């Protein structure tokens, strides 16, 4: 647990970057600091490992006051990941990862073995071990940065916009892997971003800061989207928050409709005969995993992968209401494809069914929570 106890930072030029911050980052959870540029996120983060010294207040890690500890020792026990990765250009990937273990006096062999293990952990081939950072892509460098921070298995990790310098596709991938990794490791993480979507996706709890380093709201993502405390937070969490909030609600069991399905290589006549008047037919593979929709009226010859309509998203039976609604809305047949956990086709839903489910969930929630107590 990391606890900010009325922590303030005033820079020598008089800028108050953080003003009386009171906040707790619980053990084993991801706490995201988010807010507009210059609101003091980086300053708050860097005060935890004393890269910046607070002007007043204290920061506790578990029951230790960080100001009483030797700064270098403190930092060796805290993973630190920054935006530009900050890899050492003169050291190989393995040597970079082994930095903290070597500082802690591990022997070379053990440190290298650990480095190789971590390379795999963050999804890089161990053949990268003897490369130099300049031979890696931005996304790969960032992975090495994460591996390096994890090397000595610190219980606490600080991450300052670690994924913001890579393109959106890679970012998404890195975020997913990061969540998977955290699922295994359960570190106490403080994560800084200016991207509210990233905050909502990654955070177990999200702290929204306003300029001057004041805490506007700290809450679980769903709560933040559903119940912003004021206009500032509401504005900051942005548009579509009703829709995005669905991303935190597990889909209830809905009645799924069966579909006539076709296979690649089926002839157009076969497909038309099976479909009757229905203009779209779902194509599945040998394992009954959905491949896409085919337009029954337009298909000629045989069903090939070129004629498949792939625009529709696929929801999982244990996915969220947002996944389900999106599957229905994106399907050319207007029927959203739902699959089982193993990816096999389970059935389809219509948008109005999902909306009905949303309605009844909300009605149930309102009944459980009397009016007036909704704000907190």
């Amino acid at each position, binding site marked *: 647990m990391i606890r900010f106890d009325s922590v303030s930072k005033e820079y020598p030029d008089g800028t108050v970057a953080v003003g009386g911050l009171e906040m707790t980052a619980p053990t084993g959870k991801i706490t995201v600091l988010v807010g507009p540029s210059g609101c003091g996120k980086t300053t708050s983060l860097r005060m935890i*490992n004393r*890269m910046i010294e607070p002007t007043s207040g204290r920061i506790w890690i578990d029951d230790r006051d960080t100001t009483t500890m030797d700064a*270098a*020792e*403190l*930092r*060796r*026990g805290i993973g*630190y990941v*920054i*935006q*530009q*990765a*900050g*890899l*050492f*250009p*003169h*050291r*190989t990937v393995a040597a970079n990862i082994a*930095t*903290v273990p070597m*500082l802690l006096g591990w022997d070379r062999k053990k440190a290298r073995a650990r480095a190789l293990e971590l390379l795999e952990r963050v999804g890089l081939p161990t053949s990268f071990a*003897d*490369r*130099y*950072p*300049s*031979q890696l892509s931005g996304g790969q460098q960032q992975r090495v*940065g994460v591996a*390096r*921070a994890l090397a000595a298995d610190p219980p606490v990790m600080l991450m300052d916009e670690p994924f913001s310098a890579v393109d959106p596709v890679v970012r998404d991938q890195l975020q997913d892997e990061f969540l998977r990794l955290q699922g295994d490791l359960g570190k106490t993480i403080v994560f800084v971003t200016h991207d509210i979507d990233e905050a909502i996706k990654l955070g177990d709890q999200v702290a929204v800061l306003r300029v001057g380093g004041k805490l506007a709201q700290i809450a679980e993502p769903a709560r933040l989207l559903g119940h912003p405390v004021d206009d500032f937070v509401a504005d900051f969490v942005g548009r579509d928050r009703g829709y995005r909030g669905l991303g935190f609600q597990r889909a209830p069991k809905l009645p799924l409709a069966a579909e006539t399905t076709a296979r690649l290589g089926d002839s157009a006549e076969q497909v038309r005969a099976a479909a009757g008047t229905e203009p779209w037919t779902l194509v599945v593979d040998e394992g009954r995993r959905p491949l896409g929709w085919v337009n029954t009226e337009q298909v000629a010859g045989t069903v090939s992968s070129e004629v498949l309509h792939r625009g529709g998203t696929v929801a999982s039976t244990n996915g969220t209401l947002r996944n389900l609604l999106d599957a229905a809305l994106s399907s050319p047949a207007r029927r959203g494809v739902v699959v089982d956990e193993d990816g096999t086709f389970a059935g389809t839903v219509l948008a109005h069914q999902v909306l009905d489910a949303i309605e009844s969930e909300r009605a149930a929630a309102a009944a459980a929570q009397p009016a007036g107590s909704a704000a907190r």
Partner: protein
Amino acid sequence: MNLVLTWLTDPAHWAGEDGVPHRILEHLTYSAVALVIAAIIAIPLGLYVGHTGRGKFLVVNVAGAARAIPSLGLLFIMVLLLGPRLSGDAAFVVPCLVVLAVLAVPPILAGAYAGVEEVDASARDAAKGMGMRGLQVLLEVELPCALPLIFSGLRSATLQVVATATIAATVGLGGLGRLLIDGLAVRDFGQMAAGAVLVAALALAVDLIFALVQRYAVSAGLTGRRTASRRSRPKASADSTLITIS
């Protein structure tokens, strides 16, 4: 050109106290001692200034001003100042070394300072953030990353010092400058030209040695030379490095 060849191929010029090998040895000794003194002063100072950011002003201005000092003038002043306090050869050798060292300090200082200054700020931040102490950051990150510029400072100082060490002869000392001074006295242009050629050749040879040392000292991660593993070092010719740094 013929005069030079004739002079250089005359075996009489290659033997004894005034022979070419002995002159080269003297020349190299003055240069090496001056460079070592300059490096001992300038490298730590440059690293310190780069690391702490203190005294940037000093480095930029003093280094600039020192470059403008005329070597020959400084040599005569030094001989006048220091000469009477020293005895024997030292009366001339010490002033000469001082002048050469003064000449060598600015490029080495600027190289060491700029090398550390230009280290990627995020690498430095990460080093500190992972728990390296000040000296560890300097020795394990800043110094290795600064090596290319430290070498380039050393090499440009070396070229200057080797070329300028000819002034030793003007105060009666040895070195390749003797060929120039003595040649001038007897109007032996072959000897003078041969002296100039030898100085240039020596400077290039020393630079080549530095280039080789640099290849081994500087991490391939900084030069981008090596691609995969430690063993697959390509055999690029050393002269490619020689041209890149003046």
